[in-house]
């Protein structure tokens, strides 16, 4: 019987660059920046690293295929380096590889590093959907973009739960108000300005019903983690952070091609969440998960994720949002660092950026006192890659 990953692996060092439109930084610069902070935090030397996992999604925009760019940028000494790519779960997949590498006993110390250089495309937003989905899809899929794909979930959510566009947009606006509040206080965030509900509701429409402030930013960034076996971790630092669960779930096609999915939730999040809670021994996620960084590529994504992760009852997230449950001072803070909303979403880095925030919060080391969440026990990160009807979800739970 499989035992899962719970308490077998610990994080002993992490690094995260400032995220933003970093016109002066190459992908390699970002890798070095994240690696430097990570190594200083872990207090180890490069020769201590036995193996590495490297996450990057749009390789053609930046580093090319394979994992050589990481080995070359960091001058890793002929150790195994594996590249992971699994849409927005790319960085968490790199982390999962490193964790499984040390948990298996194959290695003592492993590096996971994710990077994405998005701002060399020449346009805002990400490249269009069909071009990412292979030759057949390029000829039959709608010419959709990420905002459009997730906007369809908002349309559906409003329809299923009987919200008129005004009510629906107001609910979503509150999600972004909260994230901007948190991001404004985070020196590493890309967007550091608070916005009001009215600004959000009156912003230009990107993909109906989502407006500009319902969409996360697009930025460059990198984040990294050093992991080791849990029983070794205290040799490196007094406050290592333990991995409690790592789960991934992928769409089976029934959302897109079968007619049972309601379009108002993400099935993979629900499935991966259930497995992660079992792995971590969490019985009541609403009560036991102290805080989370979820995949708020769009405000609607965060809203339905609250339901899919069982933080809110199905169809009832609006009440929790309105009650301020997920605010920084609420009972279950979500996106304490500002989320994708304010960090932007360099695909290959985001998952590790989320774990970085959970790691720092659990250690009590959020940069500024007003950012620190009081006594968190368990932090959850969640990535959703692809589109609501066809996607990949990764979930990590970490704790003391």
């Amino acid at each position, binding site marked *: 019987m499989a035992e899962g990953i719970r308490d077998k692996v610990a994080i002993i060092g992490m690094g995260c660059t400032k995220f933003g439109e970093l016109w002066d930084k190459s992908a390699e610069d970002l890798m070095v920046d994240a690696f430097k902070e990570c190594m200083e935090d872990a207090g180890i030397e490069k020769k201590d690293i036995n193996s590495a996992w490297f996450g990057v999604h749009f390789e053609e925009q930046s580093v090319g295929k394979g994992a050589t760019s990481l080995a070359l940028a960091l001058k890793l000494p002929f150790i195994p380096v594996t590249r992971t790519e699994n849409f927005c779960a790319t960085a968490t997949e790199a982390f999962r590889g490193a964790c499984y590498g040390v948990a298996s006993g194959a290695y003592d110390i492993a590096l996971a590093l994710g990077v994405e250089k998005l701002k060399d495309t020449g346009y805002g937003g990400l490249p269009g959907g069909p071009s990412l989905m292979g030759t057949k899809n390029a000829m039959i899929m709608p010419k959709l973009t990420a905002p459009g794909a997730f906007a369809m979930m908002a349309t559906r959510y409003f329809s299923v739960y009987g919200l008129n566009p005004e009510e629906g947009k107001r609910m979503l606006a509150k999600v972004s108000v909260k994230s901007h509040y948190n991001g404004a206080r985070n020196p590493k965030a890309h967007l550091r300005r608070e916005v009001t509900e009215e600004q959000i509701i009156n912003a230009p429409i990107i993909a109906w019903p989502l407006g500009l402030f319902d969409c996360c930013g697009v930025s460059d960034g990198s984040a990294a983690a050093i992991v080791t076996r849990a029983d070794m971790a205290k040799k490196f630092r007094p406050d290592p952070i333990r991995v409690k669960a790592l789960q991934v779930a992928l769409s089976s096609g029934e959302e897109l091609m079968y*007619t049972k999915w309601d379009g108002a939730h993400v099935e993979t999040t629900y499935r991966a969440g259930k497995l992660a809670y079992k792995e971590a021994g969490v019985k009541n996620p609403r009560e036991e998960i102290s805080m989370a960084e979820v995949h708020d590529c769009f405000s609607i994504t965060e809203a339905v994720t609250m339901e899919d992760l069982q933080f809110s009852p199905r169809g009832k997230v609006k009440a929790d949002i309105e009650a301020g449950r997920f605010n920084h001072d609420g009972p279950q803070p979500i996106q304490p660092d500002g989320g994708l909303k304010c960090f932007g979403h360099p695909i290959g880095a985001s998952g590790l950026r989320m774990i970085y925030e959970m790691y720092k919060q659990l250690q009590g080391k959020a940069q500024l006192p007003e950012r620190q969440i009081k006594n968190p026990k368990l932090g959850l990160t969640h990535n959703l890659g692809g589109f609501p009807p066809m996607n990949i979800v990764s979930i990590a739970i970490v704790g003391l």
Partner: protein
Amino acid sequence: MVGIKSYGAYIPRYRMDHGTLFMAVAFLGTFPAPGENAVANHDEDTLTMAVGAGIDCLSGMKREIVDGLYIATTSQPYMVRQNSALVATALDLQSSIRTADFIGSTKSGTTALLSALDTVRGDTLANILVCASDCRLSKPGSPQESLYGDGAASLLVGNDDVIATFEGAYSVSYDFPDRWRASGEKFEHAWEDRFIRDSGYSQFIAEVISGLLKKYNLNIKDFARIVYPGLYAREHGAIAKKLGADPAQLQDTLLSTVGDTGSASPLMMLVAALEDAKPGDRILVASFGDGGDAMSFQVTEKIKNVGSRRAVRKHIAAKKDLASYEKYLAFRNLAPMDLGMRGEINIKTPMSALFRERKVILSLCGSKCKKCGTPQYPYQRVCVNPDCGAIDQMEDYRFSDRKGVVFTYTGDNLAASIDPPSIYGLVDFDGGGRFWFDFTDCDLDSVKVGMPVEMTFRRRYVDESSGVHGYSWKAAPIRA
């Protein structure tokens, strides 16, 4: 008896009001006659309209009976790659059929019809679908801009259950240089209008009709309906007078509602005549272009059995004013518009994959699980029903003639589009099956969750660097 078994038509939703055109081109001294003409949407062309007309013509009929497809046009997108073979694939016709393109003259519509009738009479094929379609590019500011319209007609020719029997034909051919377009050229050239009118139009139509009457010993008064294109309103009537016909016998030319649809013109008028025809009616059809063809039909009792068709009348009624000349130019790529850098991203069409997946991409076929009965698009080998999962238990299942409802949708302002926002969504098909599609011929405000839609064959892109016109199916609100 050989004759016509079914009819259909396609007219794009958009109309260009000649007032809009006048405002745009009057400075050039071009004064369009009052009225409007049908203009293709940005994703429509000759082939998409031919498919539309073919679907209308074949509605309620078994597509397996069709063993020939003739396309007639002067505006085919491909010079090499058979346009009729592409249309046959889009219509999901069987591969054991004869396909042919009739091109190069506005009489090609009647010539294709005549060839189909002769082929069926010769017993080598049983049921030939003829689609005449034209979507001609006219130079901005030219008289053709208001004269030409976009549209298609379709007729199924066979030798049983005919709704109109074929009685005979007569043709004339002249190398008449009224209009011409050399290989590689974008626009037609035209000689002086008075020359076309006096030396061609007025002469050839009268000659070919007189020839038909004489050959078969018929009288012009025998015909309930006389169909020939109306390039010049006054001469249109004058020809009838010269032939001894009553103006009441003349079929409406569609000139002020649709425009001159080139090779499709006489066949669209014939379809309109058939829509109103009674058993026993004789219909005379003549075309104009490098001479012309004339033919005579007699309507049978079976005309009463033709099922519901959009044909010409319903297509004319279901319209929307394009309202913007600039949009019209942009749709035809006559004014290069900035789509942003996203619009410059170009993926080369993998032709071998296109051929391998032709049933999925061009025929909109998926599969239906023989074990659990679930229809699924695109074709799957492993059943998508989570309670089934059978492997290789599939049969072909065509979605193109299935209606559905909007499951969800958006209007996307970020996606590169010549007509933003890009509207797309997921469609749940009647009878099962779900997939996502671009939507067309609709406005964002009118789209709702649960709205009924139908599938329509459209041009997806033109890749000028590779000379590829790519096509796929889109969802559209059900046209009245």
